[in-house]
């Protein structure tokens, strides 16, 4: 369960907007990367985002390159989840591998306003706003396991240790 403030954006938010391409090779520290998250789209975001805040966006979120940094910078900026109408496939993978929950729910995207406080119940598959509740199909068990451990690498570490 997470609760946070909504940062709402439109369709086709691409990986260059999420993490500017000009920093690809110059900034590699995740905390430093977080300071530049979404800076070309919304300069206020990285200054004001709080841990557990939620990004709500339109279609094809994360399209463009396969660079992991787009997911990494949002995770380290404190984003608790992203709700979008649809996700670009590679971003979707990268987000889950980084332990950042991604939820597809077009109805909720249409209804949710920028700046409002919402709650997400991952176990029940519910997005709860002040006015109403939206259901989303619960994430597959394998993805939930990865997210619970904080990402793919942490997940394997645990699994490998358990197997010893």
């Amino acid at each position, binding site marked *: 369960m997470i609760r946070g403030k909504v940062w709402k954006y439109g369709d086709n938010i691409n990986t260059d907007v999420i993490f500017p391409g000009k920093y690809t090779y110059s900034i590699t520290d995740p905390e430093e990367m977080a300071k530049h998250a979404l800076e070309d789209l919304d300069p206020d975001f990285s200054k004001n985002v709080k841990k557990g805040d939620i990004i709500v966006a339109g279609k094809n979120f994360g399209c463009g390159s*396969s*660079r*992991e940094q787009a997911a990494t910078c949002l995770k380290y900026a404190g984003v608790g989840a992203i709700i979008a109408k649809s996700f670009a*496939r*590679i971003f979707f*993978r*990268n987000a*889950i*591998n*980084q332990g950042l929950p991604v939820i597809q729910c077009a109805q909720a995207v249409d209804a949710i306003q920028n700046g409002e406080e919402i709650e997400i119940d991952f176990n029940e598959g519910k997005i709860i706003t002040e006015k109403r509740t939206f259901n989303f199909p619960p994430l*597959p068990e*394998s*993805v939930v396991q*990865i997210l619970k451990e904080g*990402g*793919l*690498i942490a997940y*394997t*570490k645990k699994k*490998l240790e358990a197997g010893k």
Partner: protein
Amino acid sequence: MGKTIIEKIIQLHTNEEVSPGKIVWMDLDIRSARDFGGANVVKNYEREYGDQRVADPEKTFFTFDLVAPAKTLKYADNQQICREFAKKHGIKIFDVDMGIGSHVLMEEGLALPNTTVVGTDSHLNILGAVGCFGQGMGDVDITFAFRTGKTWFEVPETLKVIINGKFNYPATAKDLTLFILKNLGTEKALGKAIEFYGEAIENLSIAERITLCSMVTEMGGIIGFTSFNQKRLSELKDFIGKDIEPVKADQDANYSEIIEIDIEGLTPHVAVPFSPSNVKDVSDLRNIKIDSGFIGSCTNGRVEDIELASKILQGKKIRQGVRLVIVPATKRVYKKLLEKGIIEILFKAGAIILNPGCGGCAEGHAGLTGRGEVQISTGNRNFAGKQGKGMTYLASPAVVASSCIAGEIINPNKI
């Protein structure tokens, strides 16, 4: 319920029941990294797993193809990081002399029908040409694959594309591919596997299948599979060096959509800057003067592609002021071109011939375009900045060779 090809291949690699939309844990027969991304994989690996061994060194490979040989200290360092990791873990490297990794994996009989292969190359789904489920991934995914031999994957839906009619020269498999891209755009196949059917598809050579399957990435697809007739099936077995046949879809397999495309009378087509799906008939392009040409890439770097160009260039000269760069896909291709006397024909026509690899297709390697430069290329992407600061048109080897003689984009039947 019957299964499509991708569903069958994934099912062969998991204990979970496969159905579209479901995420399953999938075993990987081959896991690879290129020089680009490879160093990040090594860094991730050593940070997270320390000295732990890779799951299976026999199934793990490095393929250096992007900046081959290294042209800056940074690239040289990155390649060396991979070499040292490979030595420590007993991993084989196909080094900078070998050519495009995806092609090498096919030539070496490592990417086989019905197997699963991942790597840090977004065009790795090219392996669909030999019935193999190849997939490009980010460096965290590949790090994980090195250590465990597995990945998680959402089983995609399958789109069935039926090609009606045949194509003849001057139209080639590249024109077929661009024409399909024109019809599908970047939306219809987004996130899906594609199965291509029809007489023209069944009769494609291996090189032609490679051309088509390489650009499934540009169609937004996960992977493309092509149907074979008997003659082409035996060619496939010769090419991979093994008696293995690709699985077929069940009669009652479930498709998300079936699309028919009529190609009768297909003419040469060109993708205009700055999108591979911005495809036009070559005759609709008038007075497009070119500064340079490029023949190569994972899409059109096979012997047949370069041989076709050589037939057009034989006894002719590239127009003054135009440069033509030719890059064979692999060392094997290069050797064949030497044996057949094709390199000499190209040399005499005035072409620049580089060593095998990805050069010419991506910024970061030899053959960049400068500001204002117009290039005609057999590559697969013409996004702004992909090859440099110029404007790239995508076409077949025949159109590129002809255009380099004419000095402007031209239909090969006019040469």
